[in-house]
């Protein structure tokens, strides 16, 4: 197979204590022997850890904040393309997706390819719309409701019972045991992510996560299932292991079929403790932060997304991933002189390639 030489822009370089997936996506591409392209790291802060990962990126750029509007973002991506080249864009943050879908055509005209879901599929995967997926009898979803004022909580509590899961529209979820705690969580998520807030019925069970890629026609390109083995104080997975549960994969495939999902997603599933029944508790419209595990286990989903964006063939079916492959996250201090930070702060752009003096 001919090596890929495209320049790939990857957002979400903030691999902090609660990491975005960008660094894992970049490492997955570097992991693939047939990938010989350029990687352009994109983030929102000159201190994003991915910008300092030696040998990972060819160039980096600090994006305008979402509050600057989507035109500013598009204009910036145009500049990135002129400066470093940009053939493919892989966004990794929920909060970017709507803006990018909004100018997908303009990106395509510029020759910047993406492989993303339709706006309709994105809406249907949202926390607020999730329960409607259960209209498909093969997909079970815990009862839930989106709400916009704390006044709704008593009724929701009666209907869904306590404990109750309160979730922010983009990120986060708390298990609350009282109305007062639910009100507190409501205000916390409004302050962080805005409206609506979602109340979801609590299910006692074991959580599994499936990272997968859909082809946009209802087919699943690949899927890797994982169980978290260690959590941070914040409840985020810090370690996990690939598992072999065909029902889990079938469920993820059904979600992709139902939504005709195009591109990466993560399906969060609870396996009810007493019955073993699987319920979809969340769909994330992007790769999870742990996606490097997929590449490590032999099924390089980020690489397939880049291939698909470029219209290149991918293995069908995808190679089976190795069950019992572990990831253990580590935090490491990267040493840098001030130049990288200085240039990113002052100009917003940096190339890591050694410049050949003419």
């Amino acid at each position, binding site marked *: 197979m001919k090596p890929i030489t495209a320049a790939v822009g990857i957002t979400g370089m903030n691999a902090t204590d609660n990491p975005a997936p960008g660094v894992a996506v970049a490492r997955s591409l570097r992991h693939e022997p047939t990938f010989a392209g350029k990687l352009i790291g994109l983030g929102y802060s000159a201190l994003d850890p991915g910008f300092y990962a030696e040998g990972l990126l060819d160039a980096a750029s600090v994006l305008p904040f979402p509050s600057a509007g989507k035109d500013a973002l598009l204009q910036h991506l145009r500049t990135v393309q002129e400066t470093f080249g940009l053939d493919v864009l892989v966004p990794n943050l929920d909060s970017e997706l709507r803006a990018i879908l909004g100018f997908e055509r303009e990106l395509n005209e510029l020759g910047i390819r993406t492989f993303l879901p339709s706006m309709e599929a994105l809406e249907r995967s949202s926390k607020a719309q999730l329960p409607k997926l259960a209209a498909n009898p093969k997909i079970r979803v815990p009862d839930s409701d989106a709400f916009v004022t704390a006044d709704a909580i008593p009724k929701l509590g009666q209907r869904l019972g306590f404990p109750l899961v309160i979730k922010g529209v983009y990120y986060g979820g708390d298990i609350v045991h009282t109305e007062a705690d639910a009100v507190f969580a409501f205000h916390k998520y409004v302050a962080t992510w805005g409206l609506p807030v979602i109340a979801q019925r609590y299910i006692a069970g*074991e959580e*599994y996560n499936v990272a997968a890629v859909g082809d946009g026609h209802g087919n699943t390109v690949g899927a890797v299932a*994982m*169980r978290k083995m260690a959590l941070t104080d914040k409840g985020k997975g810090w370690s*996990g292991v690939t*598992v*072999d*549960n065909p029902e889990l994969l079938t469920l993820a495939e059904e979600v992709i079929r139902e939504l005709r999902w195009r591109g990466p997603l993560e399906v969060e599933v609870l396996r009810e403790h007493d019955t073993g029944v699987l319920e979809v508790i969340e769909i994330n419209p992007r790769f999870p932060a742990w996606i490097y595990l997929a590449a490590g286990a032999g099924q390089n989903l980020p690489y397939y997304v880049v291939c698909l964006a470029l219209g290149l063939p991918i293995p069908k079916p995808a190679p089976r991933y190795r*069950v*019992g492959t572990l990831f253990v996250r580590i935090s490491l201090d990267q040493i840098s002189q001030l130049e990288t930070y200085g240039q990113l702060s002052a100009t917003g752009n940096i190339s890591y390639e050694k410049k050949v003096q003419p």
Partner: protein
Amino acid sequence: MNPDPARLRDLAISDSGFVFDPFTGYTFTVNATGLAILQALKEGLSLDLIVRRLQDSFELEGDEDLARDVDEFCVRLRDQKLAR
């Protein structure tokens, strides 16, 4: 106790007593007795036969300890949903 033969067959068991269940992703460790019980269950032996085999394999203080060991172990298997 009703062990689940398919699930037991799939277990990855190391000589040091580390067990991984690929279906659930659960891991646990067992001591030498537990390891012997688990391997016997994988072979499909009945509990009576297992106790007898263990009596032959290990130097034991008394029957009661052994029966209790096997019982306790079965509870753990049920916790792991490897038996009903």
